[in-house]
């Protein structure tokens, strides 16, 4: 039974539900039905996209490959999905901090945390790389003329 939840058919069902909700949301907004001066509804092309996606999701439920389990989905767990989301959130936080405090102060911290997380040892090496790489990137970008956020540090170039 647990296999069904990972099959193409199940994916089709999830997608149909999600897209159905999206469609309902769109149809509830007023802009969709607004007519532009060339006669097209403002929502025509976006709805075409949703309709296309719905049709394909439905096809996943019924087509000959419906019982197949996508190769990469066979071994993924909720823990891993959570890890992926955590990685993305970490990057988002890093970016927000970089804009405030500056590239040179935040990047070593980010790199150190991620390299440590990914299991880079010994710590001395992790720390050294986490310091050296941002400096290298900063110099490279300064040479080609891109200003990375300096934040609270004065500009070096």
């Amino acid at each position, binding site marked *: 039974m647990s296999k069904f939840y990972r099959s193409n058919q199940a994916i089709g069902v999830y997608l149909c539900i999600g897209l159905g909700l999206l469609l309902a949301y769109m149809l509830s907004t007023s802009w969709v039905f607004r007519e532009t001066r060339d006669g097209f509804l403002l929502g025509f092309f*976006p709805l075409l*996209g949703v309709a296309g*996606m719905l049709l394909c999701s439905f096809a996943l439920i019924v087509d000959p490959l419906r019982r197949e389990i996508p190769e990469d*989905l066979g071994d993924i767990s909720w823990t891993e999905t959570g890890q992926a989301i955590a990685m*993305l959130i970490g990057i988002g936080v890093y970016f927000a901090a970089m804009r405030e405090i500056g590239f040179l102060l935040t990047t070593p911290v980010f790199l150190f945390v991620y390299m440590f997380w990914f299991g*880079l040892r010994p710590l001395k090496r992790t720390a050294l790389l986490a310091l050296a790489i941002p400096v290298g990137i900063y110099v490279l970008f300064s040479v080609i003329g891109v200003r990375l956020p300096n934040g609270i540090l004065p500009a070096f170039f």
Partner: protein
Amino acid sequence: MNVEALNEALALVFTLETMFWLVAGVFLGVGLGAIPGLTASTGIALVLPLSFLLDITGMLGLLIGLYKGAVFGGSISAISFAIPGSPDSAATVYDGYKLTKQGKGRKAILIALYSSVTADTLSDIIVILIAPTIALMALQFGPSERLWLMVVAIALLGALSGRHLAKGMLSAGIGLFLGTIGTDPVSNVPRNTFDQVWLRDGLHLVPLVIGIFAMSQMLEQGLGVLRSSRRVQEASGKLADLFSKTSEGLTFREYLSCWREMGIGLGVGTFVGTLPGLGATVAAFLSYGIAKQSFPEKRIGEGSIHGIAAAEAGNNATVGPTLVPLLAFGIPGSATAALIGAALMLQGVTPSPRMFTLHPEVIYALFMILFIGNFVNLGIGRAFGFLYARLGQVSPRVLVPTIMVMAVIGAYSARGDVYDIYMMLGLGFLGFMMRKIGVPEAPLIITFLIAPMLEENLRRALLINRGEWTPALFNSPLAITMAAFAALVIVITFRMNIGAKLAKVGRADAGSEPRVK
């Protein structure tokens, strides 16, 4: 031909200074192109202030060298890390990265370089010989004709959708939907923005490509490291082979065997480059799609040098032709051409039809630099490609976080829009999920790029023809020819695809065929 001007141009071009700036331009271009998020136009915008200080040939050398280098450079990271350095090398990822995983990264980079340079050189010759004629041909392409060109491009999607057609089309649907976010092209009012003003400009291609291709790949590799999966180490181990003397290079015979793909890339790239607004990314995917469709026996998409040759020939062949509308009418065909035009204007040479009579020496010099640039690209690209790919030897524990940082800076420096980063991260997750459920990325990128253009041209054609569909679609013999061509492509795609797919499905159901990704 004006001999005096020709001599003057020769004297201007063959100076130490011009050559220095040309080499510097190519060097910078390959380097920038290989960094995700930094494209040819960002690179040119960055060096524009510097170019004002140079004399006119030095400036042309720097900018054109940078342009050529950047369009090739994108393929290096596409092949080595599955991360397209710029959107136009996204089509190179499929075959390139698979070859790297097979330990044939060196071969992949070499074919990318040779096909880029070959198609670029030949398209430059075409530009030099028949620039005015091409420009006139491009003029015949109004909204109706362009519309059919887009239909042809979309029809080729079938070839890019992989084994499971419904998933390929689902990907195309996502691209179509994402492409409608922003502003309605005719009425100029917000559309599909979920009431968020920051979505008014729509999604930008650079964060989209970085998110879908690079970030999703990094997530997967990051998870792989956490799991200490063999696969990641295997791939990076294979990258090391690039430098061992025993690693497989590219034989001349293999290079020659790609002549058809390079021909397709040359034709598609030259043509697409001449039309304003399409650009190198469309050319690369179109040429890849056509090659894949035409030669199923070459197994393009499964790690074939022929796929790389088609994609890379396609994008580099647009470089010279983008300048055609600029030189013939003073109209830049792309952002990059606009910047080159701006640089020319600041040097006191206004690009216009009169440029051929007013400044013939500049035109000749430009042609010479276009031509010589290819050979510089060949030398620098080769050295740089292997140097850069050496990064692949670094442990993924170091490489993955570093590329994440580069992806953030790349997406940010493209426009300096904060929301681009969050979009890039969100799209990274979308790409990650798509990968997990086996939905291919290429159709998404193609419809994201082409569907809005198709819509614009359709609505424009309808406006011009007072809302009448028949004249809007078939208003000239050229439009009818294009329509017939589009129909032909669709028929061929379906016959080949459906037939092949049904056969495959049949076998898969019988359990006789191993699953191929």
